[in-house]
């Protein structure tokens, strides 16, 4: 395994975390303005796209997918997934501060556990290096 993440690549992991969490929170805020969607009125989902918060959330989630794929092109899946789980923490903090939702003691404990999990991988190697097959020397 090698550990070759440059500051620019850590920045991309940060973009993955921020776009995922802010995208989810914007969608949640927008959908609370749109109101409940019934299975008999799925057309309301198209109307929801006219809401600027929902549209902002969709744009951020497209950015999330692009940066997530970029990260997967130079890091292991088992490195990227726990590293970017920090977005769960940001969503909980944003829901507390911005959406004024209640964050229980269990949730704070969950946040601490996720931070510990992220800490375990963030300092470790990012990519498994597979040995070159015999005869394929560069």
């Amino acid at each position, binding site marked *: 395994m090698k550990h070759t993440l440059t500051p620019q690549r850590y920045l991309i992991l940060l973009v993955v975390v921020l776009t995922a969490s802010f995208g989810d929170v914007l969608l949640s805020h927008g959908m609370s303005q749109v109101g409940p969607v019934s299975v008999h009125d799925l057309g309301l989902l198209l109307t929801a796209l006219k809401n600027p918060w929902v549209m902002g959330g969709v744009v951020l989630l497209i950015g999330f997918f692009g940066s997530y794929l970029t990260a997967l092109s130079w890091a292991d*899946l088992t490195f990227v*997934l726990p590293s970017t*789980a920090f977005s769960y923490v940001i969503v909980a903090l944003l829901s507390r501060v911005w959406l004024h939702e209640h964050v229980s003691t269990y*949730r704070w404990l969950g946040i601490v556990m996720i931070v510990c999990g992220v800490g375990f991988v963030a300092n470790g190697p990012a990519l*498994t290096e597979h040995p070159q097959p015999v005869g394929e020397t560069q």
Partner: protein
Amino acid sequence: MTYAGPVETWTTIVAVAVTAVAGDVLTAGAMRRIGDLDEIRARSGLFGAIKAVTSSRMFLLGVLAMALSFFSLLFTLSKVDVSLAAPASASLTFIGNAAAAKIFLHENVDRRRWIAALFVCAGVILLSK
């Protein structure tokens, strides 16, 4: 309120996790085959990078699996409480990804990564409380 019996509940939750793991592993495998996107973007521009990704059959299969996972989640949520379905499927997906990445992508999932997956898994369960 939970509308499904235990067998149906856990079958639908496992279906969400299995399709999510398939989606993650297929997209990760596709990105590994395509190569470093930063280098491709520097060489062929943003549209070159987008073309390289979207012309990969493995990537498209991964997106299909992700879409299946999304619709399985919607189906599950119509029968099972979100407070059970969301954390259970997310946690199973984390553990399943670690195992599938070791088996199919030959990633070196060492003790550090298993512990990280278990911590995140437990954290997700606690967040739903």
